[in-house]
């Protein structure tokens, strides 16, 4: 068994399996739910396999087609990719289970192929070490995500989808332009080769700017977040969950990867800018969330704010490198679990009462306790209250900030948590009270409630799993490239 774990080419399975699943779901839509769940389970197992492999052997390299870089494309996996793959599989599995109960027959026929394409794109993105290949995966990701948003079909969803599509395409093109410049400067698309050769020059600066701008747009960092709330709020809830939890993280992952491995020697000096944007995202997103009157919109703005946190690591990485990156990755995965759970919970509210107006939640805490519990637990993690993954992430981030004497950032980190608490408990408060106008209710399938609750519990559980996850992140020392750069700088 152990041998089997170590010999299977898990990375390849991770890419091809969901793709095959998507095709099969498209061809024979009769049993999509079962087919999809089997695929997801397979993907989950593959991540476990890949994890075992990585723990045994360090980083994973695969020269596709037997052609070594720079001619061919390399697949690459280290701890960072592994954690992202893992969180994708986990959230994906729960959302999938949720989706089997959420969608009706026709909708699930449409949902599954698109979602499996999305999964393919995510996995391929986390495993790629080739700049152009990354562009293709980004496009695959963007298109499938937009198509999923559009599934909801209403005015708001279509508008949101379109805005998202335009932003996503613009982002991809910016990225591609940067890739073009890099290719023509160094004659290679391979990350490893590029990282060895890269040095500051006007062209590289432009490439850095374009690639970062493209990815920031896709990650929806303030002030490029305009497309996110309408898209995430108007999509079907399981889809919102996927988007907020995974898709946004994918472009963030890519940005992180590129800055760490490629641009760090030159980009350190502008990292402060990302930090400022992060701060503004936290404040703006939280204030907007406070103003919302609908749960899903609130949760979507909360994503805008939470994304801001991820960018605080960039200015902090100088003095407190590994801590800051660990913090951010921890925040990212906690947010993935929590936000997915939260959107699922929001979906349950919508299904139950037919609306998601916060002021009319009408004693949901009594009538839908599991869902409200899921929402609350997810909220705990988002606020960063102990014991939760969000707490660990914020703790580390705060530690990094204070180690470096960045009081301003430390204050923002704490303030962001308080603001998050304010908007999230607004929802919870109304969940306890009675609405002025009671609405007609529909039963919520048990699966939907439990999927949300379990995922939210996962976000809480993460608070105790740091000793397990942080070593995983360190496989292949993805944050090490940066620390050596740091030595050079100092």
């Amino acid at each position, binding site marked *: 068994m152990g041998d089997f774990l170590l010999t299977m080419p898990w990375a390849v399975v991770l890419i091809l399996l969901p793709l095959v699943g998507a095709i099969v779901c498209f061809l024979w839509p009769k049993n999509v739910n079962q087919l999809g769940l089997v695929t997801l389970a397979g993907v989950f197992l593959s991540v476990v396999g890949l994890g075992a492999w990585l723990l045994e052997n360090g980083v994973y390299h695969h020269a596709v087609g037997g052609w070594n870089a720079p001619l061919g494309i390399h697949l690459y996996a280290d701890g960072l990719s592994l954690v992202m793959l893992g969180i994708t599989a986990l959230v994906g599995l729960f959302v999938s289970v949720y989706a089997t109960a959420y969608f009706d027959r026709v909708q699930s026929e449409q949902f599954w192929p698109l979602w499996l394409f999305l999964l393919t794109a995510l996995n391929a993105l986390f495993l790629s070490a080739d700049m152009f290949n990354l562009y293709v995966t980004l496009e695959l990701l963007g298109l499938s995500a937009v198509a999923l948003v559009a599934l909801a079909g209403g005015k708001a969803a*279509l*508008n949101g989808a379109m*805005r998202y*599509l*335009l932003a996503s395409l*613009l982002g991809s093109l910016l990225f591609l332009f940067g890739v*073009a410049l890099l290719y023509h400067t160094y004659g290679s698309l391979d990350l490893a080769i590029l990282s060895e050769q890269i040095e500051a020059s006007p062209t590289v600066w432009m490439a850095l700017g374009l690639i970062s701008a493209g990815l920031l747009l896709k990650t929806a960092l303030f002030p490029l977040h305009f497309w996110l709330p309408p898209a995430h709020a108007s999509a079907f809830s399981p889809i919102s969950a996927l988007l907020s939890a995974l898709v946004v993280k994918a472009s963030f992952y890519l940005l992180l990867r590129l800055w760490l491995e490629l641009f760090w020697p030159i980009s350190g000096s502008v990292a402060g800018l990302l930090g400022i944007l992060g701060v503004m995202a936290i404040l703006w997103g939280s204030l907007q969330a406070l103003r919302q009157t609908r749960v899903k919109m609130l949760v979507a703005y909360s994503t805008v704010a939470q994304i801001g946190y991820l960018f605080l690591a960039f200015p902090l990485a100088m003095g407190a490198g590994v801590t800051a990156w660990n913090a951010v990755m921890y925040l990212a995965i906690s947010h993935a679990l929590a936000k997915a759970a939260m959107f699922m919970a929001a979906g349950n509210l919508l299904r139950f009462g037919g609306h998601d107006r916060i002021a009319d939640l009408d004693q949901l805490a009594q009538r839908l306790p599991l869902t409200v519990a899921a929402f609350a637990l997810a909220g705990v993690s988002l606020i960063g209250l102990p014991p939760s993954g969000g707490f660990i992430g914020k703790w580390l981030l705060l530690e990094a900030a204070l180690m470096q004497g960045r009081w301003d950032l430390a204050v923002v980190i704490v303030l962001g948590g308080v603001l998050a608490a304010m908007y999230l408990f607004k929802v919870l408060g109304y969940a306890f009270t009675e609405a002025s106008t009671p609405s007609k209710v529909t039963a919520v399938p048990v699966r939907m409630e439990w999927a949300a609750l379990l995922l939210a519990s996962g976000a809480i559980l993460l608070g105790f799993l740091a000793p397990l996850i942080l070593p995983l992140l360190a496989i292949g020392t993805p944050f090490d490239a940066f620390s050596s750069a740091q030595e050079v700088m100092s």
Partner: protein
Amino acid sequence: MSIAVLYALVGIGLFCLGVYALMIHAHLLRKILALNIMGSGVFMVLLALAGRTEIMPDPVPAAMVITGIVVAVSATAFALALMLKISAVTGRAELNDEEEK
């Protein structure tokens, strides 16, 4: 300056024109056109710079551009379909700037 650079500059021009148009226009079809022109600009830079040396054109950028064109067509087709759907539902081929109340 060589012809390669000339085309690269044209590519940049196209790209920037596209970005500007994408930002200021309201009509979706126009935005889609803008994206396409931007794409052409990027492809042009990608390919033009490969021609800096006269010996043998580099096939890799050509391959990338072909892939890029396919992707662009897919995206365009999808965007157009989405635009039509929006127009059918809302009666306008524009994004609603104001939130639904």
